[in-house]
């Protein structure tokens, strides 16, 4: 491994910049969703393992701590989805100007918060229905 300086040079970034913040949060939410994938596969496996195993998994998946994880996953999913769409637009070569990028950063935050609220409402409705 070479000892030359390698990107990313975390110490030189100003984390308060919207460019850094949006990019950093996209990575963090992405890694969070990877943990969510673990939860999804655990859930699918428990369904395949039969009703008794599923009942056991349901206790684990219904713990207050796990519910907190779901809230985090909703935030991560909404942000990563919208920020990912912004990246896909960039990949076509559009909206890369400084002013456009600043505007789209605010748009990403606004849209993902709207989507979070919508999902949280949907989840709440589903919980009420299941009771």
């Amino acid at each position, binding site marked *: *491994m070479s000892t030359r300086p*390698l*990107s*990313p040079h975390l110490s030189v970034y100003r984390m308060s910049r919207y460019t850094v913040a949006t990019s950093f949060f996209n*990575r963090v939410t*992405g*890694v969070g*969703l*990877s943990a969510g*994938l*673990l939860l*999804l*596969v655990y859930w*699918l*496996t428990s*369904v*395949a*393992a*039969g*009703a008794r195993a*599923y*009942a056991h998994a*349901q206790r684990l998946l219904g713990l207050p701590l796990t519910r907190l994880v779901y809230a985090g996953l909703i935030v991560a*999913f909404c942000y990563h*989805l919208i920020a*990912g*769409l912004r*990246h*896909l637009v960039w*990949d076509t070569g559009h909206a890369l100007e400084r002013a456009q990028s600043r505007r789209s950063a605010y748009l990403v935050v606004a849209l993902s918060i709207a989507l979070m609220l919508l*999902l949280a409402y*949907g*989840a709440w*409705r*589903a919980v009420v*229905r*299941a009771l």
Partner: protein
Amino acid sequence: MSLRSPLGRVLGLGAAREGVRRWWQQRLTSVALVPLSIWFVVSLLALPSLNHATVAAWMSQTWTALLLILFVVIAAWHSQLGVREVVEDYVHGAGSKALTLVVVSFAHVLLAAAGVFAVLRVALGAAP
């Protein structure tokens, strides 16, 4: 004048034309995950209940099983590419970096295989 390094010339190394492969895979998987993940979240929230019978019946439907398999495999693929990028950036030292990448790769293949197997088991009526 060549811009290639003397060592690269001696070793006969050059562009393998694979430099954008991972980048392209990340875009493809992300495009596929937009409809798949929205489908998954909406169907999950639309389930009348989350008891075993309801979930198993849902997973047994042909389209559900197919889309669930696609979702798990493509999500694992996309996740692997993303986590790999983070590891490449933040884990320093050749040994620990290589080891972490091996663990990340194995874990994602295991996750994808376990997810696909679980869905198939339910969909093909082999679950207890």
